[in-house]
């Protein structure tokens, strides 16, 4: 029982952690090499890793997808360790009014900005691309770029202020909910349970007394 609970707890923790890793903003230092548009047919599996059609337009089974091709600085362990250069492709979709709550409506403008940052010859223009999501090659899943801005050099190290604030708020919210739940239990559930427990005690005492009477009566028939 304890093991089952432990496994459940670890699974829940993992799912929440992975989900946060997916939807939280990440920032990459990258160099845009080109932008392109491909037609995309979603499968049932990878559909959930794409946003809906541009806000204000209609959803069809197939549509064009804006992509930003870049060369970026590889990072490991939440961006603490820097690696070499690697290829990364971002999709560029409106998240609209729905999940995840980035409220991004300007994917066309972002595409124009990234096209303006295309830099293939020296000196190279590096940019910080804020994005969420994962690149999963075997399922054709791309991270969604949210914003792009230029930086001086490729050595720029973005610091995750936004993530820290969001995490602090999440933890505060969790503690608040827990305090609410505890108050509810202390003031509402426990007194009720006490009352029920009291009643149960009364009933069982009554029962055992009655049983005592019956067994005493039976005892009178036994040989002494």
């Amino acid at each position: 029982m304890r093991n089952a609970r432990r496994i459940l707890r670890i699974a829940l923790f993992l799912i929440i952690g992975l989900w946060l890793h997916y939807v939280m903003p990440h920032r990459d230092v990258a160099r845009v090499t080109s932008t392109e548009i491909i037609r995309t047919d979603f499968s049932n599996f990878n559909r959930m890793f794409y946003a809906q059609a541009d806000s204000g337009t209609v959803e069809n089974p197939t549509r064009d997808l804006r992509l930003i091709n870049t060369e970026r600085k590889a990072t490991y362990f939440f961006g603490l360790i820097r690696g070499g250069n690697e290829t990364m492709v971002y999709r560029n979709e409106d998240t609209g009014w729905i999940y995840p709550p980035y409220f991004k409506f300007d994917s066309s403008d972002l595409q124009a900005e990234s096209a303006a940052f295309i830099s293939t010859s020296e000196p190279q223009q590096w940019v910080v691309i804020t994005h969420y999501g994962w690149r999963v090659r075997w399922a054709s899943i791309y991270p969604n770029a949210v914003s792009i801005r230029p930086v001086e050099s490729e050595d720029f190290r973005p610091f995750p202020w936004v993530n820290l604030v969001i995490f602090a708020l999440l933890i505060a919210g969790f503690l608040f909910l827990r305090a609410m739940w505890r108050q509810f239990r202390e003031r509402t559930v426990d007194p009720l349970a006490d009352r029920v427990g009291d009643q149960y005690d009364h009933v069982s005492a009554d029962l055992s007394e009655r049983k005592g009477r019956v067994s005493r009566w039976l005892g009178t028939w036994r040989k002494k």
Partner: protein
Amino acid sequence: MQFVRLVVFGFLILSVLYLCITLYSRSIRREKLEDEWDANPPEGATPDMRAIFVKEGMTKYESGLRKKLILLVYVIPPIVVGTIIYFIN
């Protein structure tokens, strides 16, 4: 259409939150009043006097500013959404 859905569901979720916070805050206030009475009960206090004290404190709370501050639950999320929209787009 998405916007309507966000507004409707957002309103429902915030209403649930508002209700929960209202109940929680009321419960906390009542507990504080009870503790206040129990810490220093006047001479010859009866349970009736305690109940009246708590009731008076609760009526004061119900018409106070603290209770109205819970309405911020409906105000803050739209502001946050507006700020995000401004900074992202």
